[in-house]
């Protein structure tokens, strides 16, 4: 593509921007589920830098009661979290996750893809039946292929639904992820330079 072509294209896009933003809004609003860039492009056409436009649109919605958010590469509208008190059904029991389920979920989220033996090693107990099922039923955890090691154990990972449910744009937004990584706590083996634990033994 020549420079002239690029310029012409850019001009066209600039002119079409408001219309494109409107189309983006409408497509994401009408979608039955969070949509990827590809889904959006399939509906509005491959025009301009959709990712940039989406971020711009999200910004314009930020102060509103409805927000445009990205969850694991998928875009959706949702209500602003601070307005929950207007929207919560008066009496609805939140289904409590068991402690084992929460722990298993965080192990999968921070270590994915992770095998069941690894989950058991980290938690120090066998994963009881019903824990992973519950997480899969909630749509937060999925089987993620087999590891190419002896026994070819099944691995687990989180889903876009997990990110959406916990209002995470991506796995990078997992709370404390960077710190845990820096501390070597997401490795499978202790880092060699880990402080000696029995420094107090000779005190």
């Amino acid at each position: 593509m020549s420079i002239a072509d690029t310029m012409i294209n850019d001009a066209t896009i600039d002119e079409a921007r408001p219309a494109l933003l409107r189309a983006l809004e409408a497509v994401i609003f009408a979608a039955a589920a969070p949509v990827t860039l590809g889904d959006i492009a399939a509906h509005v056409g491959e025009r301009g830098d959709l990712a940039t436009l989406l971020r711009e649109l999200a910004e314009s919605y930020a102060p509103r009661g409805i927000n445009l958010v990205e969850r694991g590469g998928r875009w959706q509208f949702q209500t602003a979290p601070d307005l929950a008190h207007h929207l919560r059904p008066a009496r609805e029991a939140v289904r409590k996750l068991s402690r084992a389920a929460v722990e298993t979920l965080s192990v999968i989220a921070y270590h994915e893809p992770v095998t069941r033996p690894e989950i058991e090693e980290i938690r120090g107990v066998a994963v009881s039946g019903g824990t992973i099922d519950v997480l899969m039923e909630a749509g937060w955890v999925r089987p993620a292929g087999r590891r190419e090691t002896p026994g070819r154990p099944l691995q687990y990972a989180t889903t876009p639904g997990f990110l959406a449910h916990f209002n995470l744009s991506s796995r990078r937004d997992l709370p404390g992820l960077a710190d845990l990584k820096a501390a070597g706590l997401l490795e499978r083996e202790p880092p060699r330079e880990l402080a000696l634990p029995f420094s107090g033994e000779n005190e």
Partner: protein
Amino acid sequence: MGDDPFDTPPRTPAQTLVLQLGAWEGPLDLLLTLARSQRVDLAQISILALVDQYLAFIRDAKALSLEIAADYLVMAAWLAYLKSALLLPPDPQAEPDPHDMALKLQFQLQRLAAMRDAGAKLLARPQQGWDTFVRADPEGLMFETTARYDTSLFELLSVYGAIKARNSKSIHVVRRRAVMALDEAIERLERLLGASIDWTELSRFLPRDLADEGYARSVLASTFVAALELTKLGKASLSQGAAFAPILVRARE
């Protein structure tokens, strides 16, 4: 309601265990709780002190003559071994190195604590359907798929050519139908022959002036075979003086 005997679940050994150890999800969980009673910063805990705390806890539980699950006892034995290895003068041959084992234990405790913490933070985040809400009944996106058919003129013409070629072949089939069937030839020859007992050339029984050469050949062949058939049935006799000589036919009594 509480008096209903059926409301009281039966006591089982497992439940006895729940009373004492049920607060923990296994030995590692118990170790983590003990470590936290030592220090908030798990990186600073004393493994030797932790081992002592664990062994003391198990001893007390035994003193209460509670059943202790096997995995707690296995951990106790392993920790007792680790303690003795750590207290012995350093042995460079020791495999695995007890210091590495201690390091690994500490790592596991830190990792478990980190995951617990992460789980709590995760649950503290705004959650879909509780803090944030999406549209209840979106229309959904769809595609109206329209078919566009693609056929070339060459394809169109060659196919038409093929139909025409097929049809000209079928005309050929029609011509082959302009034959004198054997049944027809037998019936005709028998009728023409009548009761004639004079030898007559077979060719004289052929219809004259047949414009269609193909049909004429068919009639000739059929009439010849009909003559053979009638002879076989004993209704006619055939005679030929020599090869390629005229074939003579007559009716037979």
